[in-house]
């Protein structure tokens, strides 16, 4: 019943926001997503001891891995929602958005949230594919929300490239189905059933199937050669949406890749997938690092940094030891929180300076002190400075890599991370500090925005210094599930 | 215990020092077939300065007023380190030739500051060039002494002298030290003592602003410093009978010491006449040569000579 309620609440919220007037709609949405976060917490709590499984009518199924992703999605959804309230209010007062469009935004936001929450819960791989496709379609309207040339172009590229990617993933799913059908004669696509029979699958078909899955869902996850849509979509979308996109949407498609990787590992042993993951991980970090150096647009900079962090997570999955998988999950959580914090700050800055161009934004400390503080905290956390979470997760991933003896990739990763560090510091420190340009007066941040900034920053420091035990238990269960070995 | 004797020795040395530079000037004038000033001319100068009234520049600060005392004081302290007549403080464990060099650099530091303090271009030029030459002297001097000391297990001046016989590496080190002495006592190839053309003199330029008793003190300090360098050079070249412990009577030691100083003075006088003053930036090659000599000495002493 718990899983069903998790899926239904956002749908109900979508319906309600279609009907209710503005003031009530805000309250309803807030309540809905608050309850969602609570439910995710309960789910995580019920699952973490041992490898507990919660199922609902054969369709929905949640184990430690999906519980963690549900928690991640609902947390960032709540943060994005709380941020989007004042963000849209400013637009409505400024006349950029009509009330009808604001209502449209709320509906789409909830639909998008519903589809994302659906992905980790579906047991059947075909249904999961459909859910991922729906997330693309739902978020397409949010990317193309402002009817300007740039956002329409970004939306079109986003829809087409992601659909092509997901079609390839469908091909991969069909091949997996073929392998399962050919080997055991059972006509099923349920993940739990396939995991039972994964040992005997034909390795040749499984390898090709996994390649299609990796490229297909990889396009959606923003892995390197297929990442081309990501900077456009993130820079043109509404700020809360781009926070959702890079914080959580990329991770849902990573979730799908992990599911298939578990099957392939069982079928053919882990070294096939780990070589691929390490290659794609390092390639993504390298490409992101190089593109970051030549960036001039604030949001595109953050988009490329998302590609880099997805690369790190995939690299950690490639290393494959329980500690590495623990580190990659923990990194996914840290990155989601940090990226949404920085995107919110970027949104404020872009709105105040009315330009995306980094060279025109400087003296943020004087114009928007709170936003500048958030941007600084986010920046330092993104590049892995100590008090914040990413420093710890980076340390885990690298130490797992060294323990496994992968010295080459680890050194390469350190090198690329240094390039990324230099690029980000070079661009953002010039815009955060410095003199305030003349025409802009300071101040004007809503209270709830400040609340979001402070809470996210505190969460980051909490994750960086000490790990709450229930979260640690959940992550340990998830990593045991993925790698089969205890921590 | 040894302190009163040391003070006595320092006092005698200070009194004798002007005589040495007077003697060097006598040697030069004799070679130039000139009558030249009397041997005691430096004493007369100092006495004259003593009686004169002192004029101090208005821009000068307390550093300008205290530099003469510091320079002379540090030279006197340095005197106690070097085996002038019989023995030195280093025998009493006070420090060794390295501290000697540092004491000289203390004096030079304050003299350079005084040169700058007067606010005229000549003083600044003098101190700049003085520090420039000093920085190239230092490595050559330190290495030369280190080589010599390497034979006598410690770099304390006195044991350094006693145990080391006449060795080939000692000779080369002495040559290098001789070039250092020329630079340090502002002799011809590096600096010209006798000229008063502001743009050429280095050591004199820093004293330009001084008059009266201060100038007297600085003059005596210069003479004392020269005496120290000569005695150090002599100690390395002819190391034998120095100090009371070597069985020879004190008078014989003193006589031998005076002979050594005269010899050094003559050699210095000869070089002053023989060479012309170098351009400032060729002094680096000159002192580089001195440094190479000390490295050569090190190599030779490494081979065991």
């Amino acid at each position, binding site marked *: 019943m718990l899983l069903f309620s998790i899926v239904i609440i956002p749908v109900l919220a979508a319906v309600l926001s279609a009907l209710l007037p503005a003031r009530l709609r805000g309250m309803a949405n807030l309540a809905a997503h608050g309850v969602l976060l609570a439910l995710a917490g309960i789910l995580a709590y019920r699952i973490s001891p041992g490898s507990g499984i919660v199922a609902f009518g054969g369709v929905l199924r949640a184990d430690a891995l999906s519980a963690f992703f549900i928690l991640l999605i609902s947390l960032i959804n709540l943060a994005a929602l709380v941020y989007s309230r004042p963000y849209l209010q400013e637009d409505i007062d400024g006349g950029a958005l009509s009330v009808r469009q604001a209502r449209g935004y709320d509906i789409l936001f909830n639909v998008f949230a519903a589809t994302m929450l659906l992905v980790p819960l579906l047991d059947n791989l075909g249904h999961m594919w459909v859910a991922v496709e729906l997330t693309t379609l739902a978020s397409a309207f949010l990317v193309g929300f402002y009817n300007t040339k740039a956002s329409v172009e970004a939306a079109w*590229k986003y829809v087409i490239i992601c659909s092509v990617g997901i079609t390839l993933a469908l091909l991969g799913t069909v091949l997996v189905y073929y392998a399962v059908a050919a080997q055991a004669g059972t006509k099923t696509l349920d993940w739990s059933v396939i995991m039972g029979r994964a040992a005997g699958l034909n390795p*040749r078909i499984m390898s090709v199937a996994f*390649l*299609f899955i990796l490229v297909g869902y990889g*396009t959606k996850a923003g892995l390197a050669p297929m990442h*081309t849509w990501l*900077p456009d979509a993130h820079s043109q979308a509404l700020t809360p949406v781009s926070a959702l996109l890079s914080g959580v949407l990329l991770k849902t498609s990573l979730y799908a890749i992990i599911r298939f990787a578990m099957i392939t590992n069982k079928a053919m042993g882990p070294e*096939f997938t780990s070589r691929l993951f390490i290659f794609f991980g390092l390639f993504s970090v390298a490409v992101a690092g190089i*593109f970051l150096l030549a960036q001039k647009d604030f949001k595109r900079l953050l988009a490329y940094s998302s590609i880099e962090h997805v690369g790190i997570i995939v690299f950690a999955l490639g290393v494959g030891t329980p*500690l590495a998988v623990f580190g990659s999950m923990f990194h996914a959580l840290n990155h989601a929180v940090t990226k949404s914090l920085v995107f919110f700050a970027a949104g404020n800055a872009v709105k105040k300076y009315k330009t995306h161009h980094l060279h025109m934004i400087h003296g943020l400390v004087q114009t928007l002190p709170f936003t500048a503080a958030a941007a600084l905290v986010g920046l330092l956390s993104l*590049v892995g*400075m*100590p*008090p914040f979470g990413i420093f*710890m997760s980076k*340390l885990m991933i690298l130490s797992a890599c*060294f323990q496994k003896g992968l010295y080459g990739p680890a050194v390469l990763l*350190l090198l690329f991370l240094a390039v990324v560090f230099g690029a980000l510091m070079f661009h953002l420190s010039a815009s955060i*500090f*410095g003199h305030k340009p003349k025409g802009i007066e300071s101040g004007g941040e809503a209270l709830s925005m400040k609340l979001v900034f402070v809470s996210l920053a505190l969460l980051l420091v909490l994750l960086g*210094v000490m790990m709450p035990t229930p979260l640690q238990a959940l992550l340990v269960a998830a990593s045991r599930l993925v790698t089969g070995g205890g921590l | 215990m040894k302190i009163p004797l040391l003070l006595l020795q320092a006092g005698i040395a200070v009194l004798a020092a002007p005589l040495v530079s007077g003697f060097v000037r006598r040697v030069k004038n004799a070679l130039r077939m000139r009558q030249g000033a009397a041997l005691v001319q430096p004493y007369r100068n100092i006495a004259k300065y*003593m009686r004169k009234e*002192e*004029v101090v*520049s*208005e*821009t000068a600060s307390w*550093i300008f007023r205290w530099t003469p005392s510091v320079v*002379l*004081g540090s030279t006197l*302290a340095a005197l106690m380190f070097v085996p002038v007549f019989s023995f030195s403080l280093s025998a009493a*464990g*006070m*420090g060794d030739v390295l*501290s000697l060099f*540092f004491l000289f*650099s203390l004096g030079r*530091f304050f003299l350079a500051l005084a040169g*700058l303090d007067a606010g*005229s*271009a000549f003083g*600044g030029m003098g101190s*700049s*060039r003085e520090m*420039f030459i*000093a920085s*190239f002297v*230092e490595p050559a001097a*330190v*290495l030369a002494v*280190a080589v010599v*000391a*390497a034979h006598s*297990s*410690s770099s*304390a001046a006195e044991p350094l002298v006693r145990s080391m016989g006449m060795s080939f590496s000692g000779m080369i080190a002495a040559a290098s030290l001789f070039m250092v002495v020329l630079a340090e006592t502002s002799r011809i190839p590096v600096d010209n003592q006798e000229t008063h053309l502001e743009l050429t003199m280095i050591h004199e330029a820093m004293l330009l*602003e001084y008059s*009266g*008793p201060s100038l007297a003190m600085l003059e005596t300090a210069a003479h004392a410093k020269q005496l120290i360098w000569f005695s150090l050079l002599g100690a390395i070249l002819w190391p034998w009978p120095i100090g009371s412990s070597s069985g020879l009577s004190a008078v014989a030691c003193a006589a031998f010491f005076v002979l050594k100083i005269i010899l050094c003075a003559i050699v210095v006088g000869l070089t002053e006449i023989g060479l012309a003053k170098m351009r400032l930036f060729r002094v680096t090659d000159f002192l580089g040569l001195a440094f190479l000599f000390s490295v050569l000495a090190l190599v030779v002493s*490494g081979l065991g000579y």
Partner: protein
Amino acid sequence: MFFLSQNSRWCFDPLALFFLGVIVVVSLPSLLFSAGYLRRQFSRRRTALATGLTALFVISMAAVVASANLILFLFAWEFMSLVSYFLVVFEHEHEASVKAGTIYLVMTHVGTAFLLAAFLLMHAQAGTWDFEGIRTAAPAFPVGLKNILFGLFLAGFGMKAGIVPLHIWLPYAHPQAPASVSSIMSGAMIKVAVYGILRFIAGMLGVPPVWWGSAILVAAGISCLVGVIYALMEHDIKKLLAYHSVENIGIILLGIGAGMIFWHWGWWVLACAAFAAGLYHTVNHAVFKGLLFLCSGSIHVATGTKDIEKLGGLIKRMPQTAASFLVGAMAISALPPLSGFVSEWLIFQVFFAGLRDAASGGKLFFAGMMACLALTSALAAACFVKAFGVAFLAMPRSRAAAEAGEVSLSMRSAMIFLAALTVALGIGAGLVWKMLCAVAASFLKPPPAVWDGLLSGSWGLIRFPGTDACLRTPMIMLALSAGIAAVYAFVRLVSRKHSVTVGRTWGCGYYRLDHRTEYTATAFSKPFRIAFGFFLLPYRKTEKIRDSFYHVKEFSYETSTTPVFKRYLYDPVVGGLFRLAQYVRGFQMGSIHWYLAYVFVTILVLVVIFGRP
């Protein structure tokens, strides 16, 4: 398993306590100084922020020194860099300090990447994060791993200490921070890097092979010379002091490098003495460099400028600052009674002992190092004659210098305290030497027989073991003051009517001299610029602006030296990266067809390559 809550272990052995002492000795006067210094420049809120950050900075340094766990060390180390970044960027209105902050943080982060790699290698090999566990497991490390670890540690800590090829950030970062902070950074933060070298290379990796010691010596020698030559050319007082930090770190590492070579040859007594000499110079440098930076801060507050070309005659308007700067200058130029002299004398003795006892190859190597140290200390003396002379003496060169007033009491008391400490460290050399030999022995762990050789001599006397040359600084101080007093009394006695009249400086009798005829810093350093031209590649442009028949009315002279390391080492790398980025940016050219083609090609290539046979 990873988090600070499960991993905080502390250790307070003599080495850590010594460095804690150094940090405290520098930080307290600087904090006292910063109270007055900041209030005059910033608003009340920003002063509170700066003081808070400085306190956090000191705490993080103390945490680094006292931690006994790799993760805690790394955490505190990065936190220290982060807080010092905020302090460097504190006056973020000036574009230069933001740029300096970025360079500083990026280079520190690269250094930490080296450390991270080294720590992870050690953890992978030893299986534990604690120093103790690693020290017990260290002998079992394969030799190749030890060499790699040594390289990583030297690079990582060298970057933070400012060894030459990696020193680029130091002359940018230190001058931008507020003076009290840059004194802590120069005085204490660089020493934390030295602590790192001692703790990990000497403390953990066991008996070092000989090439380790010589590598450190060569790097230190180069750092000494390059640091002091650049300092001679620098006319911004804080940049000058920053370059001197590079030079003094070189001197400290000379002691440590020599100690490691002696340790390899098994000469325990000399090894302990060499390390102790290095440590002695560490504490001396911390004290007099802190003092000099505080003086530069008070100059900056009083005159509003840091360029010594615009100062002059400050000794008459700021007597206490001038006096303390003079004490600092004398200490750093190793002039006898003060602390700098004692530590450089000790390091000379180390090299002299090495020269005497080493085999023929070693003799030349130590001779070269001794000559390099001698040249460096002489150049340092020249540089500080320039700095003190041009800044404090003769006539003021600008209106700001003419109207400068003495700084507030709190600032002066901090400076005077440090000056007194410098003198005390010089006089009480014997006492300090005994303590440092104990510290050196604590992490070298020599056989017990060595102890008596080190600890002989009373409080005033340093008996250097091996060459039994001894140094009684109080006796030297006595001799000096006796000499000066005697001379003064003699002159007072002889010329009784000793009348002193104040006249004009000798200007060849033409006209009254004004500040334009004074010797400027550029002029003072001109001989050195020509002598070291092969390294500095000086640039010189002269231009007649207004010319008359008889003589030149107006003349412009411009000179600069090329930052060799920055231009030929760092710019090509960074420039290359940016050019590569511009080129690669072309791949995202905006057409959706190309993007689809990328996806298509990727899947084809993968199927061909990775499809299992």
